């Protein structure tokens, strides 16, 4: 590549001199061995960085704590909505069904808390435990 004609001659000389020493770097001596050992263990594709994962985990713990407190204080005890099936067409299949399905707010919240805890454990495994043990193994 031709040198540009400008008033930075000295600086360009310095750049050429310093960067001209750029050379290929060599990895550690057991590099090939380590690649061959890990050939069948594809790197874990985690879409979350550890920092984001931990933040999300903290959010989930806070959500579970709030839900538990609310359930504990009985906020959802009185919430017992029903699903009405009266508007369904009166055909053979729907004849034997109950016309309303009762729901318990408390049990829905219990379900949500359980789901949150399971998701939190999965998240903890993916973002903290697996990267940590993979690093230790390698």
């Amino acid at each position, binding site marked *: 590549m031709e040198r540009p004609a400008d008033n930075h001659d000295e*600086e360009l000389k310095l750049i050429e001199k310093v960067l001209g020493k*750029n050379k290929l770097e060599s*990895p550690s001596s057991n590099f090939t061995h380590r690649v061959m050992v890990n050939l069948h263990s594809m*790197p874990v594709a985690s879409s979350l960085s550890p920092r984001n994962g931990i933040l999300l985990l903290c959010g989930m713990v806070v959500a579970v704590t709030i839900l538990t407190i609310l359930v504990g204080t009985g906020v959802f005890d009185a919430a017992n909505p029903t699903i009405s099936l009266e508007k369904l067409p009166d055909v053979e299949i729907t004849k034997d069904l109950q016309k309303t399905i009762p729901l318990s707010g408390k049990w829905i919240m219990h379900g949500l808390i359980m789901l949150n805890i399971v998701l939190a454990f999965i998240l903890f495994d993916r973002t903290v435990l697996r990267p940590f043990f993979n690093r230790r193994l390698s």
Partner: protein
Amino acid sequence: MITLEEENRLIDRILAGEERCYAELVDQYKSYAYTIALKIVIDKSEAEEIAQDAFVKAFNYLKNFNRQARFSTWLYRIVFNTAISHKRKNKLITENIENKHVENPERADSAMERDDKQVFVARAIKKLNEADQLAIQLFYIKEFSLEEVADLMGQNVNTVKVRIHRARQRLAEELKGILKKEALTL
């Protein structure tokens, strides 16, 4: 450097189940892959991890390699993408060359002068955008051709030529500013 024919023969053998042949390809290209990763993430251990991941990925997707380009071109692109996504995810704290300079005051004068030049150029390079930094650093490694630098950056050769030309201009300007500032503080 192995020929294209030898490379294709090796790939055929690997695909036929002779996994140990892959070690030959790894040996052939490990320095190239490691250097690319190192120029992107700076940290040596991270660069090694990235280069290893890239080789493992390349092995696992080898059957999808269509051989329209050389294996090296395909591999460099995998290394480049792996390093970029790794950098984005982890926001690596790169080693600060300037701190190194301050921490080691007992150097011989000539060594100090040589290191100072490197520090000034390194400082000026840091002021360029990431793509320019990578293009200019790889361009000066004689083992990488301009075509290879262009391929791995996903740009055509002329675009990379212009990029390097402009990056050198900017680098010279930055360097001039840095040297002027240094002269004033003496």
